[in-house]
């Protein structure tokens, strides 16, 4: 085929284009909604939710996981375009993680003995927290990968990681409606791990899926 012929066909296709921010916003909305339905129907909201939202820790947790999600968004918004890197997002994510890690360590060190510190670290739900966040994040990860594939990522592993971070952050924020844990120590470990699991999965899968 002659290239001019192809160009004619391309010029005839005026399908509207949606820029990456709008597509990613749609992914976040759908992902948050799915996670919310899962929390309501499967995990159930914490019993003291009404009381919890009046306390500071509920919002600290939400702020932390939302910051991780925002970091993923900032990174993928750049990484879904050719010739752009995700540096700004990595900085935001790294800063949030470092802040909570320090707060978690400080809080653990303030406990009277090692048993109390370990108790804080394990909370009541250490065995399910990270996995639950991963599960809540999976639908959004899948939606995100499909959307990003339709864009133009040139670094598939980094783009997959950012997509997973985005999904994990949103999922963990919604998970806060269920999870009654309220120490920095617990959140810094298990929430972070829960958010990093979908990110790692995204990086792994992105290598194969995010090609165009």
């Amino acid at each position: 085929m002659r290239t001019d012929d192809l160009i004619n066909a391309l010029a005839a296709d005026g399908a509207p284009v949606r820029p990456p921010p709008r597509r990613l916003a749609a992914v976040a909305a759908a992902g948050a909604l799915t996670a919310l339905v899962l929390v309501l129907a499967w995990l159930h909201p914490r019993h003291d939710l009404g009381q919890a939202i009046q306390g500071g820790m509920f919002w600290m947790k939400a702020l932390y996981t939302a910051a991780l999600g925002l970091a993923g968004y900032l990174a993928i918004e750049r990484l879904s375009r050719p010739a752009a890197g995700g540096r700004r997002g990595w900085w935001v994510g790294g800063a949030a993680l470092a802040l909570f890690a320090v707060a978690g360590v400080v809080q653990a060190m303030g406990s009277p003995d090692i048993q109390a510190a370990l108790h804080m670290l394990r909370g009541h739900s250490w065995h399910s927290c990270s996995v639950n966040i991963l599960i809540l994040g999976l639908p959004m990860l899948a939606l995100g990968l499909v959307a990003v594939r339709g864009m133009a990522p040139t670094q598939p592993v980094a783009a997959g990681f950012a997509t997973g971070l985005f999904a994990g952050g949103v999922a963990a924020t919604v998970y806060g409606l269920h999870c009654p844990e309220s120490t920095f120590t617990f959140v810094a470990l298990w929430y972070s791990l829960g958010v990093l699991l979908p990110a790692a999965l995204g990086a792994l899968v992105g290598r194969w899926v995010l090609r165009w």
Partner: protein
Amino acid sequence: MTETETRLKALMLRGLEGDAPAYRAGLALLGTRLRAYFARRMAGAPGDVEDLVQETLLAVHLKRSTWDSSQSFTAWAHAVARYKLIDHWRRRKIRQTLPIEDHIEFLAADEPEPSVGIELDRALASLPERQRILVSDVKLTGLSLAEAGARAGISEGAAKVALHRALKALAERMRRADG
């Protein structure tokens, strides 16, 4: 050379706002640049140059929403071309590295003659008949979408959707052509 960027960017901006002749002119100008770019790097396989030009133009079209119009169009298109070239080598298992290069060189003005691409025809032949006829009508006879749709017995809206799907399928098939 920056003059090319100015012209190219102006045409693409107008094109993205729905000015089809400007869009066509922009893609044609970009096509000549892509041809020169790939020709310089594909001395061993000149037959693949036009295929790559076409695959890249398809990608530029389908991915155009990822261009941030406050940025250089050339830098964006260069990154797409570079990605497609590296992907081509990867598929053909050719071990080549592409040096970091400047966008200025991407715009260098030598203009090899266009040849005829083969992969696209192969990909086109594998499309469902209705899509194939639609693409052929629009590209060869210069029929408008409405006319081409009428010939295929579908509305203009349906023709729009079908053409877009066909182009996406073409891009996917070209990408997998020698995978």
